[in-house]
């Protein structure tokens, strides 16, 4: 007995120091993100810009006007995607669940496409709200469809409903894009997912949603542990599984919707990161969630920094880099070990 407690204390200590290490890594990557770009700015000037901002210095303006918003958006979006993926995988007990599989990305994309094609939107800042609304609407539809029938929204039904709704939404998106090249032109950069060109306003606009989503996500940690034992066991333990799924779903929609609003639909981060987190922490959402929340922005910001330097004078958008890194990484993960079931 005392040995078990000792082991647990050891595990807690190990995972806590792991979290600190991740936090440190993230801080380094964030600094790298501030220091890297098309314009060579010496490190000491980056530092001066941070501690002693001079609005007349061009280099300082570039740090604060371009790289800072980009870094902040990257941190927020990364954390949100990691959490959303982990929560979704837990709530649906589906190791492949991520915002793109449950219709959230497709809903956001369709809303933005409609905004451009029908309402004539042309600017990034107006896309955000459309994306957010679309993500919420799509998740609501997926959830309602999955809830039909006697057992309610079971994991399998959620996955099937998500896949079906995603297919429907994508066919509508394609129909619009194929008949309206102007719309395609407008949104093809948005559709890939990118952190560049986002003003700080966007970060500020989505920040409250992300905060609420994060609080909700962490509040569901214990419920997710219950769900991971299967609906029957969870029910036997006295959990209200409908409520648990509802809360987790709401958290995921808020997080994924807000992140899509800010950066476009970014694939693979929400899917891959929770598996890495689970490989480090083992089961138990108390740890999977914070690990996902730190690992994901490391991946996202790291990919963004990489995208800025590999193809000068242009940039490779972060959505492409994460897909490029994420896919083989995911395959390696699958090959290395049987994925722990969420």
């Amino acid at each position, binding site marked *: 007995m005392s040995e078990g407690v000792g082991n647990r204390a050891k595990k807690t200590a190990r995972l806590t120091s792991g979290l600190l290490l991740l936090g440190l890594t993230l801080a380094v990557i964030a600094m790298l993100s501030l220091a890297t770009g098309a314009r060579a700015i010496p490190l000491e000037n980056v530092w001066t810009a941070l501690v002693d901002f001079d609005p007349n210095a061009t280099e300082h303006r570039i740090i604060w006007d371009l790289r800072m918003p980009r870094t902040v958006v990257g941190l927020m979006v990364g954390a949100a995607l990691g959490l959303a993926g982990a929560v979704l995988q837990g709530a649906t007990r589906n190791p492949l669940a991520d915002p793109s599989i449950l219709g959230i990305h497709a809903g956001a994309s369709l809303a933005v496409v409609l905004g451009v094609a029908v309402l004539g939107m*042309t600017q990034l800042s107006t896309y955000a709200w459309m994306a957010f609304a679309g993500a919420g609407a799509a998740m609501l539809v997926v959830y309602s469809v999955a809830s039909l029938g006697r057992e309610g929204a079971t994991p399998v039904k959620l996955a099937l409903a998500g896949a079906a709704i995603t297919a429907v939404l994508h066919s509508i998106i394609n129909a619009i894009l194929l008949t309206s090249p102007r719309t395609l032109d407008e949104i093809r950069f948005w559709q890939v997912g990118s952190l560049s060109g986002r003003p700080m306003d966007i970060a500020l606009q989505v920040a409250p949603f992300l905060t609420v989503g994060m609080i909700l996500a962490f509040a569901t940690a214990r419920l997710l542990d219950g769900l991971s034992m299967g609906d029957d066991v969870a029910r036997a333990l006295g959990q209200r599984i409908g409520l648990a799924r509802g809360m987790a779903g709401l958290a995921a929609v808020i997080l994924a919707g807000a992140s899509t609003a800010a950066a476009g639909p970014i694939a693979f981060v929400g899917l891959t990161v929770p598996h890495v987190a689970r490989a480090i922490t083992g089961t138990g959402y108390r740890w999977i969630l914070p690990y996902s929340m730190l690992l994901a922005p490391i991946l996202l910001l790291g990919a963004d920094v990489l995208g800025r330097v590999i193809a000068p004078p242009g940039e490779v958008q972060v959505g492409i880099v994460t897909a490029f890194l994420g896919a083989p990484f995911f395959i390696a993960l699958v090959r290395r070990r049987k994925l722990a079931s969420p």
Partner: protein
Amino acid sequence: MLRSTMVALAVFAGSALPAAARWSFVGNDGEAVALDETPVRIIASQDAAAGLIPLGIRPVGIYADSAVADAKVLQGLDLSGIEIIGQSWGEVDIEKAAALEPDPIIGEHRPLDNSWSGGDDVVAALSPLAPLTGPIQGYSILTLIEDYEALAQSLGADLSASDVAADQAEFEAALSKLKTAVAANRDLTALAVWAGTDALYVAATEGSSELMNFASWGLNLIDPEVAEDRGYWETLSWENADQYQPDPILVDNRSEATMETALAQRTWTLMKAAEAGRATDWPAFWLRNFAAYVSELDKLTVAIHAAGANLAP
């Protein structure tokens, strides 16, 4: 030189062409198109339509590169009664085109990549219906307009009609105002750009006919350093938006969104002229007639005076 030496002849005699040909048209690629009678049913590309309609030649069908509402080149033209047979680059409705029973198809030839308006698919779809001909895009919009005038004349247009003459007179007046403004502000340097959220794209003068015109009228245009594989554009990260300090800045106005995008970038104002609001329109690649040219010249003249006033102590 790319300068088109196209010749249009209403009557053609003593040549390799069929003796019966009463209308023929020769481009400087040497390709001659000959028809038994002066054609009346013309299918035109959007650019050719914009060149011909103001001269009194109305096509029966137009194939556009985008939705007609978005096609800057067609703005302000009376398109009533003209069938639109294509609204996307590379696409054309063959059935509609065939039903129009065209005599010739008139498009524009792009010598840079040896292509015609609408691209190879459109050429493949339309050329079985009627012979394809038209002027060549070169180093000057004025040359292009002259080519359209020659073509229109061969098709029976009256170039001395009052509205045609009035358009030209207005253009001459606008041009002389521009030249005066340029001459009075020799120290200004302008820059032509397209703004995206990903980067600022800076245009090389020789990639665009109207910029070549501006340069020939004395305007100093900054020539960017274009990487070898990047055609006529230099890609500038928004972090390097102050690479050049032009005044005024000309922004591609094919779509209104381009200026909005430029203004929305925080480092747009690293260019002092942008900060002072001295960004004006660049009629990029779409001018095909005098009437359209006049309003664009007027905007440029105003911008040059404003930039000049700033330069003066």
